């Protein structure tokens, strides 16, 4: 699974940066085409949901998605055969 921010919905409030236990989200710097500074993702493959959602069959942490007032955060299935980045933390 892949963590994505829907840029059509995000309004750049940065609440996701407050709650993520992995600190994946951080405040962005460049405004997008709508003039909104969307948070940037730092190695999103570390997200527990990306790694384990399929295995457990349910949303795990999900704090960012819940607190996102604009319903902009979701996890999408990778296309079959899409290259996956795997982060291994020791």
């Amino acid at each position, binding site marked *: 699974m892949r963590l994505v921010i829907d840029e059509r919905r995000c309004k750049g409030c940065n609440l996701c*940066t407050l*709650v993520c236990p992995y600190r994946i989200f951080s405040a962005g710097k460049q405004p997008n085409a709508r003039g909104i500074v969307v948070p940037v993702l730092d190695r999103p493959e570390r997200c527990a949901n990306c790694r384990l959602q399929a295995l457990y069959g349910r949303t795990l942490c999900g704090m960012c998605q*819940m607190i*996102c*007032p*604009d*319903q902009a955060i979701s996890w999408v299935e990778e296309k079959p055969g899409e290259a996956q980045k795997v982060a291994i933390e020791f």
Partner: protein
Amino acid sequence: MTYSDWLRVDRLPHIYCAGCGNGTVINCTLNAVDRMGWKKEETVFVSGIGCSSRAPGYIVTDSLHTTHGRALAFATGIKMANPELHVVVFTGDGDLAAIGGNHFIHSCRRNIDLTVVCMNNQIYGMTGGQGSPTTPRGALSTTTPYGSQEPAFDLCELASAAGANFVSRWTSYHVKELTRSIHQGLGVPGFSFIEALVQCPTNYGRRNKFRQVMDQVEYFKTHGILVQKAHRLRDEGLPIPADAILLGDMVRRDRPAMGVKR
């Protein structure tokens, strides 16, 4: 199903300002409703007027966006006429406690089987930041330019005293707890009242030393104490901080209820 299946996606993004806590409360409510396993055609969302009350428009079920303060009276009609429907009411502090105060206490008294989620942003957001019955003493708003002189309502105390079967308070920071409490409230027969304190960066935070969205959410995080802890402090004779926000499930009881599904 997940909560996102309940969203009317063709209407998103919604009208709320950046950083508004109402969107968070919609997520939590829909998550709780989804967890109940209710069917969409059996669920009705009702609201009055205000920022919070635009929420049902973003939900795919049948929904009624009514007049200012009267959401509970409309919901009473729906629930009494067809108890098979699950009725959830979105309301705000001005809608519920000011213009709709009478309907609020009488719905609690009747203990009618509704779940009410009150998004309390402590201000009239949609009309541009006027003081509401829950604006804290001293807080600035456009109609209290020298600080609010009126004591504020404690909506949970009000609901408890008026007879609601389930009363709970959380904030837009406590998303998991809020979801759990709404889920419990949906399952309780009788009137369930869940107050969610939400940040209003545009009209409240900006005037009250919460310059960033995050500042007010941090405030909720650091000033919230569990109601059980507050009781313990009180029993031990220790002081409870004056600016503490009491959180948690306040009331859970089994008074006779009306309009419960047969």
